[in-house]
């Protein structure tokens, strides 16, 4: 956990007081809605279909239990008793009143949480691997660098009015859980031959109307230069990114139009001017940030405790353990993913009661730490294996032990037409129906790893392009129509899915997914061949045939 110091606390409080003044000026009419819009967006406030939506930052997905309780408090006091965890490790509240927002922000500031730059055309919340610091084989904890970048990008005097939003993600593992290739800047932490820390820098990834997988702009940028290198990218983007068309304003379009070679030359030129400046980071600065991250005092525990051996006789426990529990870098401990995808529920939602109860469980079983992943699930990062059976029972009582992590019902979905003013189609009801269709755990388990991602419009908040099965809702002649893609993925082998054919109606989506799954089960060479691999081996044709043969 990173602990704010007085300096961080002061800044957040100053921001809250500024926003209080802005809200006051809006309510008195001193600011027009047009002027206020940009200011509220800089503080995570959107105007949605029914009310203001408030998005709170959870930097690199790490939460302390007192912070989780503060989120529960906001859900209870200012909203309707629940919150929605997002694909960028943030949380959204959907029913906030404008006049109460400064108070909500002030309550959150007390525990070191803010909503700065969770929307608007600025540098958004820095995201990272939700298993950072605990994943076996990780090079080093990427959150140290995430925090450095969080600070550097917060209220940046040059880059707070960019052509469009700008997202940075960091991973330090071979297996990319942070989806860095679909970010404006993706950073892969690596070591050079001298053993020094640095980054492979990728640029220009993003989904939306024109999806691109990020390209490598530089194979190694030394850690001490990472801020100046990011600054160089942003300076080129701020000056040359398109501002004439919102759909062409992301950095991916600039990179695409210039070509990665020309773009990287521009960045290199700029970087040479600023790399030997006060942006250079010395080891002491990194050590200072590292010193404010606390790590648990792990016990020396057996690899296979008796409690776990005994619980293995319970098939329900085993079903949960097999997909929710992952290896930890310390023997005797596990990382536990908590599914926020119950059968029939909206993906990513948690009630205030669940948040509070989870905070209690994290205090008891996970050294007071909780993580949020981009798949819209939570995780307890340091659970002693002997505690797994007790934890499972407690989670089950809370409705948080759905054994579907990484299975077909572990669906990513945007809020869609039920909440969002940009949406063309509903997302959540599609997800809910799919969780009911595949509620049978044996069937889901037989299918194996399969990610379905759903977006309710072309802006792609539900990451449909990179779902193994992607579902995009559009509007056609006043009707919701859904386009289905297969073969996308968001990990280190990131790829965009391929459209299988004409769009289908709302009522047909679940049937089509069932057809695709049945085709896969019939086509796979052996049970271990995952859906992704079958699609890769055979292409979309056999799936297309199956889906459209009878339609």
């Amino acid at each position, binding site marked *: 956990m990173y602990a704010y*110091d007085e*300096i*961080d606390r*002061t*800044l957040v409080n*100053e921001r809250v*007081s*500024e926003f209080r003044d*802005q809200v006051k000026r809006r309510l008195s009419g*001193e600011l027009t809605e047009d*002027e206020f819009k*940009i*200011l509220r967006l800089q503080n995570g406030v959107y105007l949605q279909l029914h009310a203001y939506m408030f998005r709170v930052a959870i930097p690199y997905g790490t939460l302390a239990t007192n912070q989780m309780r503060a989120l529960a408090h906001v859900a209870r006091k200012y909203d309707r008793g629940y919150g929605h965890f997002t694909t960028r490790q943030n949380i959204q509240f959907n029913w906030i009143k404008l006049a109460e927002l400064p108070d909500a922000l002030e309550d959150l500031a007390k525990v070191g949480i803010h909503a700065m730059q969770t929307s608007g*055309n600025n540098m958004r919340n820095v995201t990272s691997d939700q298993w950072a610091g605990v994943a076996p084989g990780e090079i080093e904890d990427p959150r140290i660098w995430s925090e450095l970048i969080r*600070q*550097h990008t*917060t*209220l*940046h*005097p*040059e*880059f*707070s*009015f*960019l052509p469009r939003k700008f997202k940075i993600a960091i991973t330090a593992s071979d297996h990319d859980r942070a989806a860095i290739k679909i970010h404006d800047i993706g950073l892969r932490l690596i070591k050079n031959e001298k053993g020094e820390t640095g980054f492979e820098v990728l640029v220009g990834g993003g989904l939306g109307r024109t999806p691109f997988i990020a390209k490598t702009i530089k194979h190694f940028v030394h850690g001490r230069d990472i801020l100046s290198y990011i600054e160089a990218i942003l*300076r080129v983007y*701020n*000056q040359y990114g398109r*501002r004439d068309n919102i759909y062409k304003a992301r950095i991916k379009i600039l990179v695409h139009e210039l070509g990665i070679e020309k773009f990287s030359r521009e960045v290199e030129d700029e970087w040479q*001017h600023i790399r030997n*400046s*006060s*942006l250079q*980071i010395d080891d*002491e*600065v990194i050590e*200072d940030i590292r010193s404010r991250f606390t790590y648990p005092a792990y016990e020396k525990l057996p690899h296979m405790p008796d409690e776990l051996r005994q619980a293995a006789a319970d098939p329900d426990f085993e079903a949960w353990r097999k997909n929710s529990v992952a290896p930890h870098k310390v023997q005797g401990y596990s990382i536990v993913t908590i599914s926020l995808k119950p059968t029939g529920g909206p993906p990513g939602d948690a009630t205030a009661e669940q948040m509070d109860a989870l905070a209690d469980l994290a205090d008891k079983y996970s050294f007071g730490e909780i993580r949020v992943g981009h798949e819209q699930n939570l995780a307890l990062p340091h659970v002693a294996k002997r505690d797994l059976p007790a934890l499972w029972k407690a989670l089950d009582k809370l409705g948080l032990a759905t054994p579907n992590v990484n299975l077909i019902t572990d669906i990513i979905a945007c809020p869609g037409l039920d909440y969002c003013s940009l949406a063309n189609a509903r997302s959540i009801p599609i997800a809910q129906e799919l969780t009911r269709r595949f509620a049978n755990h044996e069937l889901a388990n037989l299918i194996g790893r399969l990610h379905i991602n759903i977006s309710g419009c072309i802006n792609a908040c539900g990451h449909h392009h990179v779902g193994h099965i992607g579902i995009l809702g559009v509007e056609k002649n006043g009707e919701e129509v859904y386009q289905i893609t297969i073969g996308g993925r968001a990990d280190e082998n990131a790829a965009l899915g391929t459209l299988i054919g004409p769009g289908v109606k709302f009522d047909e989506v679940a049937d089509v997914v069932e057809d695709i799954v049945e085709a896969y089960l019939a086509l796979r060479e052996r049970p271990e061949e995952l859906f992704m691999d079958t699609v890769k081996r055979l292409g979309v044709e056999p799936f297309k045939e199956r889906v459209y043969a009878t339609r």
Partner: protein
Amino acid sequence: MPLVNGGNIVDDSFVKLAVDTPVPAGGDILVPAERFLGEADGLLKRAGKVGVIWPNNRDIAELVPYLGKIAAIALVFPTFRDGRAYSQARLLRERYNYRGELRATGQVLRDQFVFMLRAGFDAFEVKKQADAEAFMQTAKRYSVFYQPTGDGRITALHRRMQLRHSEGVGT
């Protein structure tokens, strides 16, 4: 539109010239970029200060040969969501060492003052009178800054280093 300079509302000594208005014999003038580049020699010879209005989509490096001779540069915020002039301002101050007046024009509200000050602006054509009057208190709104810029304000990272070292002295 009130002008804030040095933190106070002041009279603007500059007259803005259009592309085709005749150049007055004396007095301070602000000239559009294109016209300035075309008539620089003549303009710089006359009595009175000369400043340039520079659009936010033109390379600021073109101004470099004149930086020692001009008294003011007015950068433009056509809307306040268009932040290109922040980069131009920092380049002028931090790369090209421009020391004359650097003026923010266009959609300038109190909510940008801190960013603008940090980027190197020292004069502001403020859209609303109330914002101009609130300049001093708004400029002091923040005491913590995470990024180093040419304004020399100490960053959070460096303040922490100082704290560490001063704590270290006693131990």
